[in-house]
């Protein structure tokens, strides 16, 4: 108070002080905000790290091991996991059901970190290669079905009316057939293999994306800024690309994150019933289905791919959850 003096009571123009106002910009900071919120979500962050780790391992993992990928060594079949150093602690020491095949076979300085399969192949490199393939299948399938789903949803939602009616009938019919049935039949019709699986996943995967995009589009197209753009004579394409799409991008990203694990699951299920990739190419699903047959005897064959697969799916879901919360304005603090 002591600083108060008469001069301070001169009236001034408000413009001089406008700069002090906190300016909240939308748009560019939208993702920054989302990212900030996402970072607070422990599950999401852990999931993100797990995905990055698994992805890294899928890229470099096969070469980290000491064995050649896909090499069959008949003398080394059915070996459980054995890791140097850890073996002294009684884990990963290569024993199974009470005996140690490494010792029995005289392979004293052979180490397979994840063990070998029934053809004597190194599971470490197969698991990571399998992860790579699962990733690949999921990414390609999801990328394509996301693009298709978005396009479909945008058109259906934006143009509405008869277009929407017809397009939604089509969606209704397609979604009436259980996905798995369609996927199995398509894979068979197209002959089992990588391309067929991707194609089959694609054909069935876009539905949910298109639904979300459509409902969001319906909401957004009634909003004032879109109506304004319309009245200014902007073309539909411009409106969709510049006004609608940027506003539903959050939802799209979240949906995409949810689609990836489901694609991975479908692929692994196909493998499980024996309709997977062409051997010796193996995805996680293939490894699980093969390992499952020996679960009683050599549980390591199924354990490692199951752990990786489950972790991967879990992580994607955690990240998707985190993103959803981050993008969802409803969850905003206040």
């Amino acid at each position, binding site marked *: 108070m002591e600083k108060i003096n008469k001069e301070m009571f001169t009236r001034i123009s408000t413009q001089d002080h406008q700069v002090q106002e906190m300016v909240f910009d939308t748009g560019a900071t939208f993702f920054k905000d989302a990212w900030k919120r996402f970072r607070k979500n422990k599950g999401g962050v852990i999931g993100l790290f797990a995905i990055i780790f698994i992805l890294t391992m899928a890229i470099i993992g096969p070469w980290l091991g000491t064995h050649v990928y*896909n090499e069959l060594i*008949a003398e080394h*079949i059915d070996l459980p996991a054995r890791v140097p150093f850890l073996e002294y602690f009684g884990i990963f020491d290569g024993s199974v059901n009470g005996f140690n095949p490494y010792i029995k076979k005289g392979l004293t300085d052979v180490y397979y970190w994840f063990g070998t399969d*029934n*053809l*004597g192949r190194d599971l470490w490199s197969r698991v990571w290669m399998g992860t790579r393939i699962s990733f690949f299948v999921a990414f390609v399938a999801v990328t394509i079905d996301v693009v298709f789903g978005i396009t479909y949803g945008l058109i259906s939602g934006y143009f509405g009316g008869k277009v929407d009616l017809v397009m939604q009938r089509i969606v209704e019919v397609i979604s009436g057939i259980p996905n798995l049935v369609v996927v199995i039949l398509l894979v068979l019709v197209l002959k089992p293999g990588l391309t067929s699986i991707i194609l089959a996943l694609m054909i069935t995967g876009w539905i949910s994306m298109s639904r979300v995009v459509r409902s969001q589009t319906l909401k957004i197209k009634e909003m004032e800024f879109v109506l304004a753009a319309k009245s200014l004579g902007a073309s539909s394409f411009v409106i969709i690309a510049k006004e609608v799409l940027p506003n539903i991008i959050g939802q799209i990203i979240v949906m995409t994150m949810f689609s990836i694990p489901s694609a991975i699951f479908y692929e692994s299920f196909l493998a499980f019933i024996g309709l997977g990739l062409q*051997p*010796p190419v193996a995805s996680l699903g293939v490894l699980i289905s*093969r390992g499952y047959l020996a*679960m009683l005897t050599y549980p390591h064959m199924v354990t490692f791919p199951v752990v990786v697969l489950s972790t991967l799916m879990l992580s994607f879901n955690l990240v998707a959850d985190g993103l959803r919360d981050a993008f969802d304005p409803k969850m905003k603090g206040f």
Partner: protein
Amino acid sequence: MKYLTKFVSLLLVSFLIVGCTGGKDEGSDLVLKVAKSSDVISLDTHVATDGVSFEVIKAFTEGLVEYDADGKIIAGVAKTWDISEDGKTYTFTLREDAFWSNGTKVTAGDFVYGFQRLADPDNAHQYSYLVESLKITNGADVIAGTKPVTELGVKAEGDYKFVVTLDAAVPYFMQLMTFPSFHPVNKAFVEAAGDKYATTVEFLISNGPFVLTEWISGSLIKFSKNEKYWDKAVVKLDGLEFQIFKDYQSAALEFEAGTIDVTAITSNIVDRYKDNAGYTEVKLGYVWFLSPNQLDVTMQNKNLRLALAHAFDRAQIANNLLGDGSIVATGIVSSGLVTGPNGKDFRDDSGAFQTMDVAKAKTFWEAAKTELGVTALTIELLVGSPETDTGLAVGTAEFLKSEFEKNLPGLTVEIKTTIKKDRLDLMNTGGYQLGLTRWGPDFADPLTYLKDLFETGSPYNYPRFSNAEYDGIIASVSPGGDLAADLNVRWDTLKQAEALLLGEAGVIPAWQTGTAMLISSKVTGIEYHVVGMPGYKRATKVE
């Protein structure tokens, strides 16, 4: 994970509280419980083609003759039988105390009807070709539809005399009479049942040691002892149960728990049970082989086929990959199938072919490359993916790929997996290069392989192997051929034929299946055969 376990336990507890009473199987006395990996496809003796169906049919019907435990032919519905001097007429005298489970007598007419029904082209029964291989008079014409079924060379002389006439002497005739397709069929019952015949237990009658009492699709096939069976004194079991376990591991666990008496196990889990008291390996007649399709230009190259034939380690497949009692197939005719006039098994006597020899394989490979004018080659290996009874077809294919690529530099093998039906379709229509397939013997004679699979024009000739000399040899040893009569000469000629076939690498045998079985020590008397179905008639079990 730890939490998950806790959580699951919690779930369970809550579920248990909701109220459940653990149902246990009711303990019936002396019921043999057998685990099967697949369900019955058909109970109709003529429609059935698969192992489980035949095994079931064999348990509730009986043919003219049967195998005993050692594979000798013994009386069935036929008390005695006479073979004419020229070996072309078989006269069976049927026992008069054989009854169908509905009380009617089993008569010669039932056999006549059964044979005719099998051969009837309208039915397109898969095993009708056996009528042809048996050289039953007019058989080929009836199947082709050019003569009515009544012209087939079978007749009933009264109720208890059944006569079959053949165009030529067939050495394996009696063996085939044990085959379920030649079991009697009750005409009146079939016609009364119409389309429903053999589709459910109600529309079925039996004349064998057991009666089928319950068939729950996908889970259970139940038999009880047939009180009307003529030889019921021999049947010790009160009942028989086939439980269906899609997964061998579950079956094995049930075996451990004592709820199952007999189960097969796959190589994947053999290691776990090798030391089990109940562990047995049963040799089966199925031979798995690589079929090089000679409609394919590349596969027409003999050197290539030979290179492949010598380039892989069969012992690894049989002993390490499978390890379930499977053995190396040194030739196409299975071991234990037939014993020759010299008292030797055909397999041992004929010798080992296409043994692994990498150097030799490489030589053939070089020659093949030169002839084909290539430095590198890609071939496609067709394999059925979920082949139910052999989970390991794909694994074997992967092993073969690795062996071929390792030993024949420049060769790339692409594995093509597809469902079994599609694999067979492709092999039937010739749309493949190299296929992994199998053949089970239908009767105890080398011809079951050599003739049916590799004679020019045979419908089962997947490799499209065609060799005039070979066809000549096969014709000469086939029923009615020049050399068919002299058993010693025939034997040697058959060996010669196999040598020719395998020398050409018209086919590349890989292994002969064995099945690792777990049979409870309480059980005795189940009869397993290389050809034909297991017999449960004389099986027994102590409590």
